[in-house]
């Protein structure tokens, strides 16, 4: 492989810095962490204040602990599973210990959920900020803390930007705070932080809150230039929906309008009629995942602004009404809305295969990229990778335990895994368990049967205390070896707002040796 009549050893020295810099733009920050200690030249290129090497290390795990008897400590883990632990101690000060430098935290929020006291929340954030060396860089910050009154919101608004640099901020605001106009000036977290608000709209307060709602969504009264999404719940008779439509038709600055509004737990059943009465027309259809894992095509309704080139689009699925404001002139660049969150391809993890070290059994979370139109270019490529990956033949690690896949939609993953299993010569290296979440295909029994599975026994599964079902376990024997693959299709529950509801199907696959 290695070329080298001209002496590879000189390659690093011969290639100009500029070209090395260009090469380094292709790798992750985790890779740069390794390269920077390889040799003097690479270190100079990487740390030399290059403006091109802007990539950020993604931090997945963030833990911290405050114990009255122990020190405060912070623990963070990168994509390459490198873990940094910092303890608060007197000698640490001014040591130039920048944990957050060139990093971004994927998500932050769970950790402050227990805080009852806003002072404690501030103290925690301050500590993290001090220990990490700079403002905590976060992709999405979810405030689980319930701000009870305007005073607390004002406090939060004051200290939050000092300690956290969030791209998205999600806040749960009680209705008595949000519908009071006095609170609105505290929702401005600057142009780089998109603000998302969740709140309730109780029907007993309709006369008082409706004018507030109209003004809030219209954007005309807002200080914040960066309102992104509003989530309302407990709408019961269409009053919110109609108010928002009215506010939209009257607004003179649609660019300041909330970009997205979700109304959860909509209690009104006649959405189509109400939409039509308010000037909406169905314009196209989108696929939506229904509870139970079925895909259904749903109408997108649209109403145009009476004067400006803007439109409001509405889709109603599973008792959630989604509203989106769109500039008609720019419509072409806005991708047609896919309600499901489908992202990231597996191939980027392909490179990580060799890092599933030999000692531990990692559980992996993968997203497989599939389009509902089935014109995805990635399916053929990734299905092949998937087969090789599950087969275990290419793996270094003898101890891969569980693989979790998402967004399977037409059985392709399932069939690929079955094929890989039937062909494998070393089932002991095969993944021991594979879960496929969000299965979009409804005919599991038929597909399983066609691929040689037979129901062998039944198991009793508890979905909720009131809901128990007997479910078939399907089994496929390996054509040559004494191994079998067992499959169960079960329903997953997920929390929506405050309630657990059946959300999507999960196909569980397990490999076992037959005595």
């Amino acid at each position, binding site marked *: *492989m*290695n*070329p*080298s009549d001209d002496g*590879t*050893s000189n*390659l*690093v020295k*011969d*290639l*100009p810095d*500029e*070209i090395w810099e*260009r*090469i*380094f*733009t*292709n*790798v*992750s*920050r*985790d*890779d740069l*962490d*390794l*390269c*920077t*200690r*390889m*040799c*003097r030249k*690479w*270190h100079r290129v990487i*740390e030399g204040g290059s403006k091109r090497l*802007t*990539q*950020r*290390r*993604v931090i997945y795990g963030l833990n911290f602990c405050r114990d009255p008897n122990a020190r405060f400590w912070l623990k963070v883990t*990168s994509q390459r599973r*490198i873990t*940094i632990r910092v303890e608060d101690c007197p000698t640490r000060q001014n*040591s*130039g*210990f*920048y*944990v957050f*430098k060139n*990093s*971004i935290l994927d998500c932050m929020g769970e950790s402050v959920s227990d805080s009852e006291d806003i002072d404690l929340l501030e103290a925690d954030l301050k500590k993290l900020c001090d220990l990490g060396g700079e403002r905590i860089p976060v*992709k999405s910050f979810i405030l689980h803390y319930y701000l009870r009154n305007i005073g607390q919101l004002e406090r939060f608004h004051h200290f939050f930007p000092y300690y956290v640099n969030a*791209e998205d901020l999600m806040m749960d605001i009680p209705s008595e705070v949000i519908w009071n106009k006095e609170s609105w000036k505290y929702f401005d977290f600057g142009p780089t932080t998109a603000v998302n608000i969740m709140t309730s709209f109780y029907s007993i307060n309709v006369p008082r809150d409706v004018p507030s709602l109209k003004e809030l969504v219209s954007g005309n009264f807002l200080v914040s230039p960066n309102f992104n999404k509003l989530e309302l719940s407990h709408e019961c008779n269409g009053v919110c929906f109609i108010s928002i439509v009215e506010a939209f038709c009257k607004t003179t600055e649609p660019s300041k309008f909330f970009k997205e509004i979700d109304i959860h737990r909509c209690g009104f059943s006649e959405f189509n009629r109400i939409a039509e009465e308010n000037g909406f027309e169905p314009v196209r259809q989108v696929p939506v995942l229904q509870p139970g894992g079925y895909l259904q095509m749903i109408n997108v309704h649209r109403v145009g602004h009476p004067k400006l080139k803007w439109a409001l689009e509405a889709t109603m699925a599973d008792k959630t009404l989604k509203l989106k404001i769109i500039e008609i002139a720019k419509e072409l660049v806005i991708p047609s809305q896919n309600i499901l969150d489908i992202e990231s391809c597996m191939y980027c993890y392909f*490179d*990580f295969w*060799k*890092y599933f070290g030999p000692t531990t059994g990692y559980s992996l979370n993968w997203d497989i990229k599939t389009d509902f139109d089935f014109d995805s270019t990635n399916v053929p490529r990734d299905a092949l990778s998937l087969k090789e990956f599950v087969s275990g033949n290419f793996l270094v690690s003898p101890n891969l335990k569980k693989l979790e896949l998402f967004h399977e939609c037409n059985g392709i993953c399932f069939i690929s895994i079955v094929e890989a299993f039937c062909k494998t010569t070393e089932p002991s290296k095969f993944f021991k368990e594979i879960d496929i979440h969000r299965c979009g295909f409804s005919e599991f029994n038929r597909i399983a049967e066609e691929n040689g599975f037979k129901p062998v026994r039944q198991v009793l599964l508890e979905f909720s205390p009131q809901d128990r079902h007997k479910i078939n376990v399907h089994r496929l024997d390996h054509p040559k070896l004494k191994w079998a693959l067992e499959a169960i299709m079960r329903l997953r529950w997920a929390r929506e707002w405050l309630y657990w509801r059946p959300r999507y199907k999960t196909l569980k696959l397990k490999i076992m040796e037959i005595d």
Partner: protein
Amino acid sequence: MATESANGVSSPELNERDVVITTNDNRNFTVKIGVARVSKTINNMIQDLGESLDLSSGIPLPNVDGPIFEKVLEWCEEHKNAPEIKVEQDPHTRERKWFTMTEWEEEYFRKFLSHLWDLAMAANYLEIPSLYYYTCQKLAERIKGRTPEQIREMFGIEDDLTEEEKAEIRRTNVWCTY
């Protein structure tokens, strides 16, 4: 592109005409102007010369040798009508999104595997963005997701850092645990 008709000849016609390019080992290559223009450096020379361009006496390339230029020309021939490449990055990680290569391009790099750095240097000098970016991506493949030992072996890197320097690197970048 503004001065495409510098010679008083319209662009499609000019693209069909031949130009002689001389590499630093005195080899002459007769190339269609449309192909040579994939290189912005050569394109600029042709435009700068304008009226005085003598197609037969040739354009000198003092920084490229014949064998490499031959390989570069192969790329230019294939990419003469290709649109400008789009460089995109992931908004969150700010990592460059990798280009998907065509069968032809994969085969091209397989064929010239041992000349990647020469191609990178030549593409940089000749300003051929597609070849430059793709070659750099190919070289980055040898770094991405690999262990320190693999990288060191792949590029034959000598460890020329002193212990003090290493300690300093570890101090300023806590993530550098290697």
